[in-house]
């Protein structure tokens, strides 16, 4: 995550301010924190919102955004099919309205997620057993393919053949499953 102040260095400090039970968080780098630390603590709580952060992540400061009307309308036009949240509303809120937002904003999301998660764009973790569907099998297949490649390089052809058969049977299983559903 980049520093909210300079937008240059990675943010390493998180300032949390609570005013009347309202929590505000500001991500800063060491340099800006030292420069501005005191002013942040005394500033109006509303001066830093998630909006500034998200807009900053998209390299559109709120001011620039107003100047560039075309981009604004473009963002207004992208709307979630499920909850009807527009992309600009999402930026303003810093929160999604429903699970379909991810689908509707799929094209716009990667740059945001990349900045929020140190360049990562694709989930690598747990997959739910029921809803996850064929992801488990797909992951297993790609693991086996890697193994297969290694075995072929080492000229372990007998073992490679077993792995190849495993991949084939997994792929067949997936095709059959798809056939049943359609």
């Amino acid at each position, binding site marked *: *995550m980049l520093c909210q102040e300079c937008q240059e260095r*990675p*943010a*390493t*400090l*998180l*300032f*949390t*301010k*609570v005013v009347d*039970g309202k*929590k505000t968080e500001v991500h800063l*780098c*060491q340099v800006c*924190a030292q420069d501005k*630390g005191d002013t*942040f*603590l005394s500033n109006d709580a509303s001066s830093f919102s998630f909006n500034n952060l*998200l807009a900053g992540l998209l390299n559109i400061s709120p001011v620039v955004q107003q100047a560039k009307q075309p981009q604004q309308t473009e963002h207004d036009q992208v709307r979630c099919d*499920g*909850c009807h*949240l527009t992309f600009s509303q999402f930026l303003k*809120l*810093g*929160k*999604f*309205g*429903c*699970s379909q937002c*991810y*689908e509707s904003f799929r094209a716009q*999301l990667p740059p*945001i*997620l990349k900045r*929020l*998660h*140190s*360049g*990562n*764009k*694709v*989930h*690598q*973790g*747990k*997959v*739910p*057993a*029921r*809803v*996850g569907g064929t*992801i488990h099998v797909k992951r297993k297949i790609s693991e086996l393919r890697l193994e297969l490649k290694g075995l072929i390089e080492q000229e372990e052809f007998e073992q490679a053949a077993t792995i190849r058969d495993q991949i084939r049977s997994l792929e067949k299983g997936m095709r059959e499953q798809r056939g049943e559903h359609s």
Partner: protein
Amino acid sequence: MTLEKFLTQAVSSWMSEEGPDSEIVLSTRIRLARNSKHYAFPTVFTEGEAKNVSAEVKKAMEHVEEPLELLQMNELKELQKRVLVEKHLISPNLAKNSTAAAVWLSEHENISIMVNEEDHLRIQCLYPGLQLKEALEKANQLDDVLEAQFDYAFDEKFGYLTTCPTNVGTGLRASVMMHLPGLMMTHQMNRIIPAIGQFGLVARGIYGEGSESLGNIFQISNQITLGKSEEDIVEDLLRVVHQIIAQEKAAREELVQTSGIRLEDRVFRSYGVLRYSRVIESKEAAKCLSDMRLGIDLGFIKDVPRTILNQLMILTQPGFLQQYAGGFLGPFDRDLRRASLIRERLEMDDSQYKGGTDL
């Protein structure tokens, strides 16, 4: 009510236990954020949808082995909610939302599942000391049981879909609460905090505002939830925490060697304040509690148990003080109460240590 009786009711039982590395790590928390694919997220959902979510959660909960108690936010008094917040069992956010917001709590209060917070579900597991893997395993178990009943919003590419884009992917926040007086006194924290950031982790002070940590207590947690597996996130955090533990130990050793008597003096001054003061502000209490705890860890103070810091950190917060007093307290009355509660708590150990020998 006697303090002892109040304590057994007030302090979560896991908090009175010691865990691995509890000399420096006070507690471990794992949180998983999950949502239903059928309903809008709490950002925009209707009251009807909120109620449907909580009904579906209730049904899914029947399959959870541990007995969990359901607390509806709109049925709790303000003070009760505040106490739950101070115990980290619910978030301030949940306490404010009353549209079908609820929490499911285990008897030992080491499991808390929030419903209709920022996400439909927030599964939390709390453990004493450093037990990240254990807490993750427990949270995963609960997650599996719920997933069998509840249709999670999940995407092949984005992972678990969450309300806030900062949680998407694993929906996992792993955090460790550490007591780091040695690193603070040797002015090493300013160097360590930025270094932590390079590993996708973040450190924040618990007491007080901004980066300043009055009680020398820091929470270290992962910032990145996408593109790393749960195991890797926990493993990376664990590695960094182990290094911080080693550095904190080295700093304490150095302090004992270079300024032994001064350090001992500081510890006992603070201990004296806690034992005898009649009025104490939360800032001063936090500082003295940290010093006393360091004194216990270093062996200067022998007759006070270590877990007292975990307990008093929470007990001296405004919500608890008022609950103990049985009603609203102004700031000055709170400072009075805080002082007397700390004194009583310390005296409780005196009798425990004297009477405890016949066990």
